[in-house]
């Protein structure tokens, strides 16, 4: 094994004198006095020395400690058994880690990401003598609600002939399930799992398609006005307390996708705990199984080492790409990408690189672009399509969207859901600001109608701002009506109560139905000739609508409330 000796330590960066060649981004293990092996990654090579970022606390490392180089890049283990897991940024399963190390994350303890003793029911698909290439399916195993495809490892670049394949039966992850030979006759034993370097995108597909099909989140404002497409990207910037995490949690519960990967990157541990305790209890409306069975949590919270925070988003997106390769729709939610960018900034500072704006490294933009570009809807060789949608939150310093991370993100995403302090202070949730936000994707409804309604809302905002200066008296009735209509649309449609059992998730049919009713109202002439009467009429209507929103779809209660609303409106139509 290649080795080196530690010659310098500065924070979580260690300099190692090399005894042989080294690969950029290779994984090394620094061995401490206590015999702990600390995982690290080569991030710069200079002459006979390499600088490594250590994924653990570096206290206690001494000059002269040895370093083993693995010869591999930082990789994720891919195979059945990933769903339902809770990993740290380096794919260590946290519950198993707790069993072994107790309450605290003891450094230097690494556990296999996939359970080695679990048996999987393998059904072969390929046959002896078949020609196969990377990502071709050898067989399947049931995993949660899906058939998990066992594929030829993506890093096998030749064309292979299957020499033997195991019959249907139950096997361990590490059992050889097929033997293949390459064009020169070399034999390879394939198991159900393999490693893939996390910082390289998986590109074993035919072609990338344009994201057009909407990914439904069941949050009205997103699906109707600011849609996200399957395979698209979006970002949610917002100051603290504006509800980024609640919005992400709601999306992770209700999004209409097959697999959800939550990357809790440098945020509060308490928030992950809520997901952890809640998800196993909830059912996935799509499959009827526990929500946890379609979820993977990558949890590298704020107090965990910074270098593995940097790695965690790559681990997450690699797992997402792996499931996409099976023709599934995957949603990756990263909370928060600012913390990931800060991790890059810390490392860059240690490397004494020339800083860019706010001391972020000059490659901040290309790194952010590289990450979001790993999203996409693709046509696989099998003819199926699969998608990875990425939604990232951004935590801008001081809530100011001009800062580098927000700006770099806005350049590469397809939708922008900007949260505002103003709206969250007024308890208007989700606090997505209608004026600032935009989306380039097509939604479920007629764009003409939604644009018209959206513009009305914007106009309402403008009138409201004007009214603050000239007062209600100085506003014309026509403007005042626009304000009331905009405010009404905002209150009953834009805003949504994520703590209400019914209102928290609204199916697309219902969204269309309700939206049409509101649209019709907004385009009707009303017999309102006086401001205070108009205000009280809209207040009553709003109250009825809010009750209607929390009535379950198509129930008696729902129909009764709808009839009342219809009557209320009909009485005022000109």
């Amino acid at each position, binding site marked *: 094994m290649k080795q080196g000796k530690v*010659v*310098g*330590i*500065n924070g979580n960066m260690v*300099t190692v004198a090399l005894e042989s060649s080294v690969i950029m981004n290779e994984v090394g293990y620094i061995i401490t*006095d206590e015999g702990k092996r600390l995982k690290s990654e080569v991030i710069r090579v200079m002459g006979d020395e390499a600088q490594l970022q250590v994924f653990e*606390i*570096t*206290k*206690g*490392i*001494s*000059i*002269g400690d040895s370093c083993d180089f693995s010869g591999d890049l930082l990789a994720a283990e891919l195979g059945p058994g990933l769903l339902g897991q*809770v990993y740290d940024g380096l794919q260590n399963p*946290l*519950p198993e*880690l*707790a069993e072994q*190390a*107790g*309450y*605290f*994350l*003891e*450094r230097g303890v690494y556990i296999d990401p996939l359970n080695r003793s679990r048996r999987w029911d393998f059904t072969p698909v390929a046959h002896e003598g078949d020609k196969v290439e990377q990502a071709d399916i050898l067989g399947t195993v049931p995993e949660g609600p899906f058939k998990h495809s066992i594929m030829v490892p993506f890093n096998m670049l030749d064309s292979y002939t299957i020499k033997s394949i195991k019959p249907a039966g139950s096997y361990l992850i590490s059992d050889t399930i097929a033997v293949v030979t390459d064009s020169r006759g070399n034999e390879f034993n394939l198991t159900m799992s393999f490693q893939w370097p996390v910082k390289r995108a998986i590109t074993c597909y035919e072609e990338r398609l344009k994201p057009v099909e909407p990914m439904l989140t069941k949050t009205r404002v997103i699906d109707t006005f600011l849609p996200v497409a399957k395979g698209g990207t979006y970002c949610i910037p917002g*100051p*603290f*307390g504006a509800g980024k995490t609640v919005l992400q949690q709601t999306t992770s519960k209700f999004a209409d996708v097959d697999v959800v990967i939550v990357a809790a990157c*440098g945020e*509060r*541990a*308490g928030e*992950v*705990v*809520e997901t*952890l*305790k809640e998800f196993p209890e909830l059912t996935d409306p799509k499959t009827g199984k526990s929500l946890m069975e379609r979820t993977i949590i990558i*949890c590298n*919270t*704020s*107090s*965990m080492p*910074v270098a593995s925070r940097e790695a965690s988003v790559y681990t997450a997106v690699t797992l997402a790409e792996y499931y996409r390769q099976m023709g599934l729709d995957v949603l990756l939610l990263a909370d928060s990408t600012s*913390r990931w960018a*800060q*991790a890059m*900034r*810390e490392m860059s*500072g240690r490397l*004494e690189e020339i*800083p860019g704006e*706010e*001391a*972020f490294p000059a490659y901040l933009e290309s790194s952010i672009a590289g990450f979001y570009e790993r999203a996409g809807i693709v046509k696989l060789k099998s003819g199926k399509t699969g998608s990875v949608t990425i939604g990232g939150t951004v*935590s801008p*310093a*001081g809530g*100011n969207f001009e800062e580098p991370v927000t700006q770099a993100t806005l350049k590469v995403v397809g939708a922008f859901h900007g949260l505002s302090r103003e709206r969250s*202070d007024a308890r208007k949730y989700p606090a997505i600001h209608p004026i600032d936000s935009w989306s380039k994707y097509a939604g479920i409804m007629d764009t003409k109608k939604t644009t018209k309604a959206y513009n009305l809302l914007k106009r309402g905002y403008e009138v409201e701002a004007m009214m603050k200066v000239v007062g209600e008296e100085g506003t014309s009735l026509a403007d005042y009506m626009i304000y009331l209509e905009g405010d009404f649309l905002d209150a009953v449609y834009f805003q949504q109560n994520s703590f209400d059992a019914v209102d928290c998730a609204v199916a697309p049919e219902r969204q269309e139905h309700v939206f049409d009713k509101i649209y019709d109202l907004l385009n009707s002439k009303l017999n309102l000739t006086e401001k205070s009467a108009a205000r009280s009429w809209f207040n009553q209507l709003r109250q009825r609508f809010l009750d209607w929103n929390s009535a379950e779809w198509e129930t008696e209660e729902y129909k009764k409330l709808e009839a009342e609303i219809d009557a209320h409106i009909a009485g005022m139509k000109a």
Partner: protein
Amino acid sequence: MRKVYSKIETIAGNVISVKADGVSYGELAEVSTSYGKSLAEVIKLDHGMVSLQVFAGGRGISTGDEIRFLGHPMEVSFSENLTGRIFNGSGVPRDKGPELTENLIPIGGPSFNPAKRVIPRNMIRTGIPMIDLFNTLVESQKLPIFSVSGEPYNELLARIAMQAEVDLIILGGMGLKYDDYLYFKDTLEEGGALSRTIMFVHTASDPTVECLMVPDISLAVAEKFALQGKKVLVLLTDMTNFADAMKEIAITQEQVPSNRGYPGDLYSQLASRYEKAVDIEGSGSITILGVTTMPGDDVTHPVPDNTGYITEGQYYLKNGRIEPFGSLSRLKQQVNDRTREDHRALMDGMIKLYAAFKDSLEKQSMGFQMSAWDDKLLKYGAMFEAVMMDLTVNIPLEKALDEGWRILSDCFDPSETGMKTSLIEKFWPKEK
């Protein structure tokens, strides 16, 4: 016997460097100067050169002074004997008690495994209505008190230290004025709370490096007590001083500053301290209440801004009161449905009416005519501020709720309060 080095190569600010071998990262050393001995911590190793941060500062160090490496990182003694004692940022007694050296534990230990965390479930009663009733403090919560300089934040902390229903209080003082230190000491002594308190205090005149140690020492000790089943409340004042100490040291070490001179890892550094707050299943808990002074009342200043992203809400201290609007306890929903059935409704209802009062007040100050409803609100606002917002009281939650109903009944008719009928029937004070 460990080797002694006596040739200091460079001295820059609080950092000295010396050629030495066999040294490990984070190790402590003892520097003997003509002014006495000081501890120093290894902060960088570069080939043969060891950089050390001297706790007592670089002033007065001679290039010929002796450095002895101790072979272990920063540690603090942990035992029951700590209670009632006062130490400085290096763990040296500040009171007249004996030095403690038994059972040393390392500070700045690893992070708690998120998979082992539990959903917070117990409230901490403080006897202050603005906290208990409106923004309940929850066990394992981390909450800062955002405050402008000059606000009575230390008085508030001292009161919480005396009244909070916890087993142990650990007070970490950073950059405290000496008067404030004496204030804490005297108040806790008089209130009889010193016996359940441990203080680690760095005063403004102490060396900057010691300031950095205070949160780590406090939290390391808190963690051990929590593992023994104790409910620990850690009070930290003032975290802005801690951040400023970090800034000072980062700049003297020529690190690239990120935002207003603060180092790029400010968020991670603050988070690694605040995230020590935890509720340990089947054992004790750590709750952190820290003061963050906001320079110029600017919440977008890097320290309060980063803190806000880490903590679970904030108390906004303004004009000697906890502001009901800026303040938020994110975890209150976890507990306030199990205190008394009227808690949530009263919390929301009273705040809504207080917001209406503020509107009326604005109208009044602009010279508009006051309606009867406005007069009611003005009366209500004055009573609310006098009774509920007073920070110098000790009222149990139930009593505070009753007071709330009394204020409502003194000012309004039941139907004007927007409260549910069932609650009004049960709690509205009967005619006297």
